[in-house]
């Protein structure tokens, strides 16, 4: 089993495209945003799992071909579902997640102003 995994890793590591520095930075930024689907909450950048290595290679290839970040995200989502993105897209079902900070700020801000506007009993 371990041997098989090692062999797989070996096969996958071979032929990783070498990217220009700015492309490599873009690829690594993307790797940090994409979740390793067989790991517990790690990005593919952070994981040593064979699948993460596979996905790193895929991302490097796509970046080398000049694919945009948005396209790449779309391709990932089509293949693995929304769970693959560590930053959920803004849509109906994730809207509360993105609106929550603003709602909390407004509520807290209202409390703050109420406390500030209270009458003074001392000088």
């Amino acid at each position, binding site marked *: 089993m371990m041997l098989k995994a090692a062999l797989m890793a*070996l096969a996958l590591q071979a032929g990783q495209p070498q990217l220009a520095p700015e492309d*490599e930075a873009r690829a690594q930024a993307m790797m940090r945003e994409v*979740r390793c689907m067989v790991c*517990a909450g790690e990005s593919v950048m*952070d994981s040593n799992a064979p699948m993460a290595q596979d996905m790193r290679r895929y991302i490097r290839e796509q970046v080398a071909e000049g694919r945009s970040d948005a396209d790449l995200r779309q391709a990932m989502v089509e293949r693995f579902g929304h769970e693959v993105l*560590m930053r*959920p897209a803004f849509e109906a079902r994730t809207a509360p997640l993105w609106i929550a*900070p603003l709602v*909390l700020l407004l509520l807290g801000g209202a409390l703050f102003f109420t*406390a500030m506007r209270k009458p003074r009993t001392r000088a």
Partner: protein
Amino acid sequence: MIAEIGRYLVALAFLACIAQTLLSWRGADQGGRSGAARAGAAAAEIAVIAAGAAFLLLVISFIRSDFSIAYVAANSHVDKPLLYKISGAWGGHEGSMLLWCWILALFGLGLARIGPKDAALRARAVSFQGLLSTLFFAFLAFASNPFERVFPAPIRGADLNPILQDPLLAIHPPMLYVGYVGLSAAFAIAAAGLVQRSGGRALAGALRPWALGAWTSLTAGIALGAWWAYYELGWGGWWFWDPVENASFMPWLLGAALVHSAIATEKRGAFPGWTVFLALIAYVLSILGAFLVRSGVLTSVHAFALDPERGVWILGMLGVSAVAGFALFALRAGSLGEGDGFEPTSREAFIGANNLLLAVTAGVVMVGTLYPLFVDIMGWPMISVGPPYFDASATPLLILAAALMPMAAFMPWANGGAKPGLKQMRAAFLLVPVAGVIIAFIAFGAPVLAVAAGGVGAWALCGAAMDVGVHWKAAKVRAARLAVTGRALAHAGVGFIALGGAADASRPPDIHRALAPGESMTIAGRSLTLEEVRRADGPNFMADRATIRVDGRSVVRPERRFYPAANQTTREVGLGSDLRGDIYLSVGEARTREDGVMAYEVRAAFHPLVWMLGLGAFLVVMGGGLALTARLMAGAPARARAGDGVKAAGTADAAQARAT
């Protein structure tokens, strides 16, 4: 025999906690000085001794490798080094719960001995602490018995998870637990105050030292955990916004809000309801953290010992504590009194803004951590909420809070007036180094958020230096000077953390390369040469150790280890540190490269100024410790108010404010 005695001691401690709850409650009804109150305190003592003895027996069982005890068998191994045999006693679920219980009992005894000055309030707080302890001791006795026997006893044991076999991890859980559990004392005092109808100011004064001590310890525990993650998990991250980290971060954020709002409440009577509410919810979130970590509802890299049934127990304890605390709050918050209004440029306003931002951040972290669970329950397609979400939502709030922080110390109470304060701070003068740091970050091509965090970090450091410069002289008594120093150190620590975090976020891309011995690679202008790879076996593992020379001078030795007992491979990172930052190296297995040469996969990263994170955390902990010492030296609020009378106006105000 030891296991049976241990089990008996846990049961005894459980009963003692029930007695502590009931007797102290009766004692508080009688004014706090009656026989019942003394008996309640004695029960607290019995609980401490019984739980402490049980914990000692567990440690002894680990030292003796008594594998007839299921928990020892699951978390130890005959070949394990002694230190990790001992730390195994709190490395797994049952043992760490026993530690949690013992600390709860210790805080109960602490409240009974050096708790609030008001005897009735003290007895009532001891009673509430007894209730909180009873819940956890019941969990320990009925659902998490660390002394459960296993038959037949295994010969060698299953070994502690190898990545937990680390000196830092031996002290990280106790630190963290003193923090989590310490917040229970603030909860108990707050709940007791609501029952006793204590005024908000007196209550804030009574709970502030406990909150400060617990929060400081929580800071140290989290920092140790982050440091461990940095060098042990092998990819150089120190904060992942992972559910387990978030579970500790929520009580930390609210604890940070609490130690500040309690100052405003104690001194000016501002935010009385809010301070008490924070004291209640901070501990409730500690239990929520235990639930998230222990129940396995959220997958996480750190979630050890998962068990859904235990989750239900912890949820029950969470429910009882939360309902008791918040019902009391709803019924009695009126007795805390109302705070006065204040100007937008007053100290109250800055502390209020600090609390607003920290509490909203805690709320955001909570929403982000629990949202995937909510999506799952709704049956929607699963989503992940990871670091990019929190960096976009929580991090800017924290940067804003840190940006306001340096000015707070220069704002007068109540009527405010920013002009004299900012002039005293020479704010315009301070903007020069801040601008320098911002330009440097931009020049290095740092991301926007990192530029902001770097600038804020420099601003905070300048502010802290100015704080000491201006307020040290004005402080007349030793306690006041200590308090100013504590505040400045803690705030400087925040500045260092912001700078270190910003620098680390601007680091160059990592490099992976297959190197054969003798070959080199370059990162951040430093050449790394793989000299050799050798076997370097330890007591309970086999290892390959690489020797990598940096710039032809210093040597870094990352390892790849295999722990046969746990059948697990780990990477021991090699670090080459200097003032500029850390060269971070890990080495993989040997394999044949395309060109047919045997090579090792080397992963190299450069983490600039990462030492600032450690220094910053250390300063925050030191600052918290000094502030606590100053608070204890200044003594009871009554004496502190006498000091208020003689203090000079203006600058002394700010210095004294923190001391009293």
